[in-house]
């Protein structure tokens, strides 16, 4: 009697261990997926807060690569000069960290600007087109090139390659379409 009881207990304990094991392994598998998922969601969220200037001043080839580095390698969040203080504050709020000052090793914050090609000087070498990260320059070999102002992020990447220095960065013009009411004193 006693032995059958012990056997029963043993068997049920064994079954229980098996069950728990199965359950645990079941839970473990999707939890890995969830973690990976959470990471991509977080990368998306970080990327959303970055200004998408794609200037590579942060040391990464674009905003998404920097977002990935922030989430995966815990790279400091203060390396994006175009985003400035605003972006850092928002990133800190998202990631629950303190708000560091912009690391000016990577560049300084500037007011939004757009590139403009001095069309008289352009020799049509197409080098700027190759440098532009957002395809904002139009032109063809040996023909004058133009920047589409609505597409240009002002990243400055087209400036160094130009052999005749005919690309300038200028603040965005105030027009009746983009004019803003001033703040009352």
């Amino acid at each position, binding site marked *: 009697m006693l032995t059958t009881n012990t056997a029963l207990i043993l068997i049920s304990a064994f079954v229980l261990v098996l069950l728990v094991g199965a359950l645990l392994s079941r839970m473990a598998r999707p939890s890995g997926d969830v973690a990976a998922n959470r990471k991509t969601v977080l990368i998306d969220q970080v*990327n959303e807060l970055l*200004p*998408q*200037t*794609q200037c590579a001043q942060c040391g990464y080839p*674009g*905003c*998404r690569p920097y977002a990935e580095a922030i989430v995966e390698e815990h790279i400091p969040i203060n390396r994006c000069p175009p985003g400035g203080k605003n972006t850092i504050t928002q990133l800190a709020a998202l990631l629950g960290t303190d708000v560091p000052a912009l690391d000016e090793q990577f560049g300084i914050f500037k007011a939004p600007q757009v590139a403009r090609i001095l069309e008289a000087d352009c020799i049509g070498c197409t080098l700027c087109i190759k440098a532009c*990260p*957002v*395809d*904002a320059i139009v032109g063809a070999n040996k023909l004058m090139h133009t920047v589409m102002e*609505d*597409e240009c*992020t002002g990243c400055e990447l087209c400036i160094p390659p130009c052999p005749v220095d005919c690309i300038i960065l200028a603040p965005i013009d*105030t*027009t*009746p*379409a*983009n*004019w*803003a*009411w*001033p*703040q*009352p004193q």
Partner: protein
Amino acid sequence: MKLLSSLLTSLEKQTARQYRFRGGIQLPGNKKGLETPIKTLSLPDELKLPLLDYSHRPLQALVKPGDAVSRGQWLAKGLASPATGTISDIQHAPIIHPGGLNANCIVIRTRSDAEPEAQAEQEKKTGVAANSKLTAGTQTVTPNIASIKGLGGAAFPLLDKINALGNRELTTLIINAAECEPQIACDEALMQSHAIEIVFGINHLVALTAAKRCIVAIEDSKPLAIEKMLQAIEASNLTKDADTNTSLVKIELKTIGTRYPTGAELPLIKVTTNLDITRNMHPTDHGILCVNVATAHAVGLIYKQQFADSRVITIAGNNAAKPCNVRVRFGTSIEHILAQTENLAAIDQSTIHCGGPLSGFEVSQIDLPVTAQTHCILINQRQKPATPVACIRCSACADSCPAELLPQQLHWYAQANDIERCTELNLAHCIECGCCDLVCPSAIPLTATFRYAKSQQLALTKQAQQAAQAEVRFESREKRLAKQEEARAQRLLKRKEAVASNKSAKQNTDGIQSALARAREQAHNRAQARRNSKKDL
């Protein structure tokens, strides 16, 4: 029959009932210049037309300097030439703008001698075009509804407004004749003198939109306008009774209470139909369209084969020598208008305000062309603005707000640049009516702050859109580069393979050559052997 008449009386009762909108304030009308009829200004030698649409986006010119243009011809999309003449220039010139900005303007040197000729040409044409098809060059076009802009102040194209209905049925067409803002009297003057033409236009608008019901709403402070409009409406309704062919609905007139800003879209809908439009809905979702009374008059002009290229402007203000209402061609300069109406005298000691006293803004010069948006020019004594003091939390601002907002809270977040909080507090629904300013005992510039915050809100939205666009372009470029890189690698690989197979082919030929050489050698050896055996013989 009995049922019908009881239905009609109940309808009448309904239109007679007064509904109220929430908030708003009672203001003295202070409307002047209504005793004298509307004067039509002589055509100035020069007209200047900003190449901008109603929301200040640039328009592409269809003409160039030196071109001859005739009245009614398209100068740009939706912009018809207000006179016959020559394009003397397309220049960057100051426009009526709160920021004192410039814009590209088409300058027309007018030919007043060609006026009767243009009108005669227009009358010869049959039919009215209801599209915005553009005719470039010197061709003239038929009278076109697409040239009509809303004349209530926003200058939204009438055709776009009608098209916004989509395939929804127009249950109620409301003709906005409230004109609730103090001092502005151009619509009232128009109704007093042109009621028949207005009703003619309304009937065409009803036909054009297939409206099921049409209500003209006029504030009870305009008795003469009400009387004239009522006469014209009754006459028109009688002819509809007589004509069994017409399916046009009869026009109703509704006298509404005088309270600012009852002429704004949502308050107007509330007081005429008792309908509350919720924040996520649009009047068109309820089959409602509001059209300003002067716009309806412009529709009438088009159907009379005339031109919709002028408007009535109120000249008023405490420094105006002769307050009046004048009809002016679009593109006329403020200076010309003030000179012609003998209002130029006190200009040096005055400020010039374009638009109503609450909805408008100050301009710093008078060499500016008027547009469809300019319904009022105020010449006011200079005065120092009151110095704001701290908010006492009296909540008078919230009580007066017709948009049911919390101006005090909104102001707190707006001045701190917390646009996100402002958005949550429904900043976008502020109609910039200025009620909160008027009632605030602390003289806090609430409306100006909301205009500022709304600009910031717009800029942020635009920035987000541009960032999203840049992201897409960046990522598609990365993909393209990766593809190119892969294609290059593939090519390289292929070339390598080709070179390698070339080499092995060379080895093969080497084999053949050596085999041949061996064969030749063998043959040579055999021949040698044969020769040797012959020798032996």
